């Protein structure tokens, strides 16, 4: 079995090697400026939190983190509130034109953002929503809702229908069945879909870059892309800001991995 242990270690080492660009950025965020350009020793000087201090105290990153969090949470909530009942109807109820609707939803997940960004920009400006959370939540819902509908329709179909029939025989109406019987059984699927949609919204760049103008609504990816440098590019500060921008994805990958993987693979491995 020692052969197996060595092989396991080798595989893990290779994966860690693949993740080096991330670890390198983490290391850079802790290096004092003077040591940044000295590559050979991994850590030429004692690690410092100076870059984090600059980012937290003298950049728009704190506001951006708050904006990103708010927009991602609201997008997730809106997509779930609309998507959960919709997915149940698609999976279980005799909706007219269901095949065409499903096809349309799949087509929506394939929509290039660059195609719709122009019209959305014009519309959001006309509505006076430029540089607001509302603009980003609306825009992000355009890709979050189809994902939620598609994933959850599949999850509901996997719930045995007998449970519902039993409840219906007991006299519960459709809505009662949905709220009391199906919803609790859907929870794992809802968590997976929510995580996926939260991540997509947290990471989204094109809409946020186009529809925001100030720190009132600028999200983390935008703040990071526009990170200011006066004379030189502040690589250490950028690395620190990158680490802060990566916090929610890291937490999700480590702590909520099981649900994330389920959501990721469900769409592709169905049937």
């Amino acid at each position, binding site marked *: 079995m020692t052969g197996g242990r060595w092989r396991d270690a080798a595989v893990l080492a290779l994966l860690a090697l693949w993740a080096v660009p991330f670890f390198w*950025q983490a290391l850079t965020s802790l290096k004092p400026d003077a040591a940044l350009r000295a590559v050979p020793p991994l850590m030429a000087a004692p690690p410092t939190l100076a870059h984090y201090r600059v980012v937290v105290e003298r950049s728009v990153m704190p506001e951006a983190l708050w904006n990103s969090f708010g927009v991602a949470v609201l997008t997730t909530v809106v997509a779930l509130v609309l998507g959960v009942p*919709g997915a*149940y109807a698609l999976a279980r109820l005799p909706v007219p034109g269901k095949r065409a609707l499903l096809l349309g939803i799949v*087509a929506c997940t394939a929509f290039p953002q*660059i195609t719709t960004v122009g019209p959305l920009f014009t519309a959001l400006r006309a509505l006076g929503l430029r540089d607001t959370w509302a603009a980003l939540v609306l825009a992000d819902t355009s890709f979050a809702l189809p994902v939620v509908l598609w994933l959850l329709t599949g999850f509901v179909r996997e719930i045995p229908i007998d449970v519902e029939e039993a409840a219906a025989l007991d006299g519960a109406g459709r809505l009662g069945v949905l709220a009391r019987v199906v919803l609790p059984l859907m929870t794992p699927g809802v968590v997976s879909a929510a995580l996926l949609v939260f991540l997509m919204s947290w990471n989204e760049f094109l809409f946020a870059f186009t529809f925001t103008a100030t720190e009132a609504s600028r999200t983390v990816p935008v703040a990071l*892309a526009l990170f200011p440098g006066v004379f030189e590019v502040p690589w250490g500060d950028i690395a620190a800001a990158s680490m802060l921008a990566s916090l929610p994805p890291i937490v999700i990958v480590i702590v909520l991995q099981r649900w994330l993987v389920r959501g990721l693979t469900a769409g592709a491995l169905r049937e």
Partner: protein
Amino acid sequence: MIDRRRADVRAGVALLAPAVLVLGALAAWPGVWVLWLSLQQRIPIFGIDRFIGLAHYRFLAGDARFWNAVRVTIVFSTVSVALELALGVAVALALQRLTRGRRLAVTLLLLPWALPSVVVGRAFEWLYHPSAGLVNFVLGGRAVNWLGEPALALPALIAADVWRTMPFVALLCYARVLGIPGEVYEAARVDGAGRLATVRAITLPLLRRVLLIALLFRTLDALRAFDLMFVLTGGGPASTTETLTVYAYRSLFQTLQLGFGGAIGVVVFALVMLVAWAYLRTMERPETTA
């Protein structure tokens, strides 16, 4: 019974209507509007707003910058996706035999995929730094300007994209491979099949469906990709990394030609739909549905 069915139809429409209406307003309608927009010359800062029919498309047909963007988009997509699929399968096969540390392995794998693409862009910008970058150091203290050299920028961009998205392919294949019952491999071993023969005869055929799905997902994403090139190279140097999406963005919001940029966006959309259609045609053929 008929009453029950009618009530079900009504409940279904009521539950689905809000989602469909919102999706119609936020996705379908902008999708139709952009078609209309692309038939107009609309440059708000000069107060220009007039119908010009297919003039934008006619212009694109003879536009060298457009054809360069088409070429860059296609090269970027095919090379990225090919590398991701090949590496993804290799990683999935390595993971398949992992007995310990599976959770750690999936964590390491998912990390690059879950990060914002802007973070990835800035990380690779630093890695590729001509004088202080890790890449040049590992290559023995060279001073290659990866992102500034026309011949190197696109490969450097593709490497960053493969780093970010290979894990998605690997994870899908890994999940599929875990679903293959152990007895199948047992039987192969009893029959005297070697490791390579087993992979070729059992694992790869069983991965075919999931690979086709990964191929579709990844190709559509690569054709639509924008963040990474916008942050990493901005389309440069000398337009060698300017994809259709970057050209469209520049036209839309840097020169503020909403109609012309819209027309390029429509081309991206047509490209995506063409790939999806070709894919569905392939999947419908009986020999590939297994």
